[in-house]
């Protein structure tokens, strides 16, 4: 008798102990047991084992368990705002300008406690002071971005006097943790400064590869891989309740019907293009814009999720349209929508920030926000600058890429009297000669200070350039500043050694003018291994000084990242 045959009957024996056999299986097992001494011994052994297990001593639960649970529940779930958002309530009344430093302020408040919020620090889920808190409250060594400065000065007026020296924190506000065995993975959202879990999310079929926190901190939008299907899925999880505002007119839109803790799937899309992985929140967190490309020629179109109604709406039906970013506030709540093609073009679509959404999907664009000859404009958080693409686009399978003369450009954002014009245009890469064969795509992100930006996964089809003939490289991360007249150059690549050997960059966030938070995929051995990614902070040094790399979480323990942070300029608006 073969080993496999024994294994089959051992499974039946095991199931029989819980009376979990069909009649046919029972008959089959009985017949086998009659002639198999080994399986009879297995039955006796398993039955004895079950008897031993069932006879384990019942231990009384601690008497204070109920009280402990009650304290935990009242310390967290009953509060209108989760603990990690409470400091924002406290500082919200100080007049704004604090969003850029919220993470660091939070760390200090939790460290010092505050008479204004007795709930902070109470309850079992409240974070305790830790070394990571101390680290996050330490001001960055270099000058922070301009947007952080007003926050720091206003923070000095706070009752929490120790906040006076707070500057932008290099740490992310949040990051994803996708951990567990390959067949039992769990997804959670972790608070960057403390390492505490903010939300646990039903695990998707693949790891998260892009994430954006809404400006009001209530929502986390993210893209996950959909197993090995070649598709991605866009999700939205509500991670916090709305913060009560002093001004009842702010925000001007209604609260969402979607409860805290709930996750909504926003659709599936062809994977593999950075143009499809952009998640764009409107300034106040009312709308999320994103793009879905259907496989097998189904077309690419832009979608917008309206938090007030808890529904997504397809806002284009061109089949070649991508969501860009939201336009400067002076132009109202308007979304740049880009159409791919030989001459890519971007339009504005106006939304109503106080109530209903846009006009009917596919309508002609509002005349006040005319077209520009650019693809997928990416506005800086403060609305002053824009990065966009130019060139000839063509379809590669189900996605569009640049096929001739493609390259990213930087310009000053349009102002209200001339919304269709990008002024002071210059190539993002200052030392790359753009010819017919050039970039097909790249991932680009702005920093919180609206000056720093990063480019990675640059797909270059032209003749290699640069000193070592490997430039631009898809394996390098280029870190530049809009205020740098040179633009990006080969020297702006962060150190090659910053990225773990063999790893590839999945996501980059620019948290200060000198810090990047990088998610890097570590190769795994096969489908039986859980995906793994390192999350780390790179402190950029110039000249011959090597960059500093600070691990946030190691891929040894699972997949960590992407990070998310509040890059909103909304809260700093007057």
């Amino acid at each position, binding site marked *: 008798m073969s080993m496999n045959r024994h294994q089959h009957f051992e499974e039946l024996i095991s199931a029989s102990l819980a009376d979990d056999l069909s009649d046919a299986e029972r008959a089959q097992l009985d017949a086998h047991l009659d002639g198999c001494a080994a399986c009879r011994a297995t039955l006796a052994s398993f039955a004895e084992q079950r008897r031993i297990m069932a006879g384990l001593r019942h231990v009384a639960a601690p008497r204070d368990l109920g009280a402990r649970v009650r304290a935990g529940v009242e310390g967290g779930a009953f509060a209108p705002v989760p603990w990690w958002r409470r400091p924002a309530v406290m500082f919200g009344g100080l007049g704004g300008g604090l969003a850029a430093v919220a993470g660091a302020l939070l760390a200090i408040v939790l460290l010092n406690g505050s008479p204004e919020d007795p709930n902070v620090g109470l309850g079992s889920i409240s974070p305790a002071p830790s070394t990571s808190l101390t680290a996050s409250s330490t001001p960055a060594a270099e000058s922070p971005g301009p947007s952080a400065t007003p926050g720091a000065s206003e923070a000095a007026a706070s009752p929490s006097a120790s906040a006076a020296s707070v500057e932008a924190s290099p740490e992310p506000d949040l990051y994803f943790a996708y951990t567990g065995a390959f067949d039992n993975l769990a997804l959670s959202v972790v608070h960057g400064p403390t390492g505490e879990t903010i939300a646990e999310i039903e695990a998707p079929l693949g790891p998260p590869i892009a994430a954006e926190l809404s400006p009001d901190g209530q929502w986390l939008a993210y893209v996950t891989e959909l197993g090995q299907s070649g598709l991605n899925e866009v999700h939205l999880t509500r991670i916090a309740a709305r913060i009560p505002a002093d001004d009842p007119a702010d925000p001007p839109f209604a609260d969402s019907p979607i409860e805290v*803790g709930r996750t909504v799937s926003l659709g599936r899309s062809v994977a593999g293009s950075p143009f499809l992985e952009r998640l764009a929140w409107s300034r106040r967190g009312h709308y999320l814009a994103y793009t879905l490309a259907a496989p097998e020629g189904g077309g690419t179109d832009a979608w917008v999720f309206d938090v007030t109604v808890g529904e997504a709406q397809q806002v284009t039906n061109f089949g070649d349209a991508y969501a860009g970013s939201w336009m400067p506030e002076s132009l109202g709540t308007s979304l740049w929508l880009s159409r791919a093609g030989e001459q890519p073009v971007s339009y504005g679509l106006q939304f109503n920030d106080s109530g209903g959404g846009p006009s009917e999907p596919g309508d002609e664009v509002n005349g006040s926000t005319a077209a520009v000859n650019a693809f997928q404009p990416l506005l800086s958080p403060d609305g002053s600058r824009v990065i966009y693409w130019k060139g000839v686009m063509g379809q590669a399978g189900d996605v569009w890429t640049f096929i001739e003369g493609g390259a990213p450009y930087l310009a000053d954002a349009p102002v209200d009297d001339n919304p269709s014009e990008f002024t002071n245009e210059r190539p993002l890469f200052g030392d790359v000669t753009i010819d017919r064969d050039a970039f097909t795509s790249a991932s680009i992100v702005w920093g919180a200070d609206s000056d720093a930006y990063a480019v990675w996964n640059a797909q270059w089809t032209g003749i290699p350039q640069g000193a070592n003939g490997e430039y631009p490289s898809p394996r390098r991360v280029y870190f530049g500043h809009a205020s740098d007249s040179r633009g990006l150059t080969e020297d702006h690549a962060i150190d090659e050694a910053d990225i773990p050997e063999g790893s590839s960059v999945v996501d980059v966030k620019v948290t200060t003018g000198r810090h990047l938070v990088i998610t890097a995929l570590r190769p795994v051995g096969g489908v039986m291994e859980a995906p793994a990614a390192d999350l780390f902070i790179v402190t950029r040094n110039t000249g011959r000084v090597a960059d500093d790399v600070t691990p946030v979480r190691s891929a040894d323990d699972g997949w960590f990242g992407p990070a998310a942070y509040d890059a909103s300029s909304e809260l700093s608006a007057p």
Partner: protein
Amino acid sequence: MVVPGRVMWGEPTMTDRAAHAREAEFAHLFEEFSSPIYNYVLRMVGDPDRAADVTQDTFIKAYRKLDTVTEATSTRSWLYRIATNTAIDDMRRRRMVSVMPDDSPVFTNRADDRPGPEAQVLASTLDDRVQRALMTLRPNHRQCLLLSDLEDMSAQHIGEVMGLSYAAVRTLLCRARGEMRRALAAEGLAR
């Protein structure tokens, strides 16, 4: 055109329920399940203090997720799933669990050796030896065996807790019994 993707909303189940209804539901849940969950977790983690912490966290999470329980969900399976995940998280934090596929070689768990006061109670001879044997199992084997033989759950309910198919549970349970058989033999408790 064909609209790509899908838009999906969860059906609100408790959105409009009054707070006191929620409270009553939770109180009932706690009364019925706090003791079994504590014992299950105790056997999972092997330490009374940590079991109390994990049980506490389990019910706090359950309270927050109460509105995700639907008619189709077995409340018991749902609660045990939360407890299981919380216990695994706890063990992972304490480096007692490695991420590894089911077919990897057996590794030895490092039991928490802090002797809490209740540990003395737990450490009656038979219990102690069975618990030691349990702690040598892979976490998913231990979990499956406890759910079956301690909690008397059916394969279907174990599947709900562990996120596995009925067939996978039967296979896993059989492997767990084989592993436990060897572990008990090492403790002199089985052939």
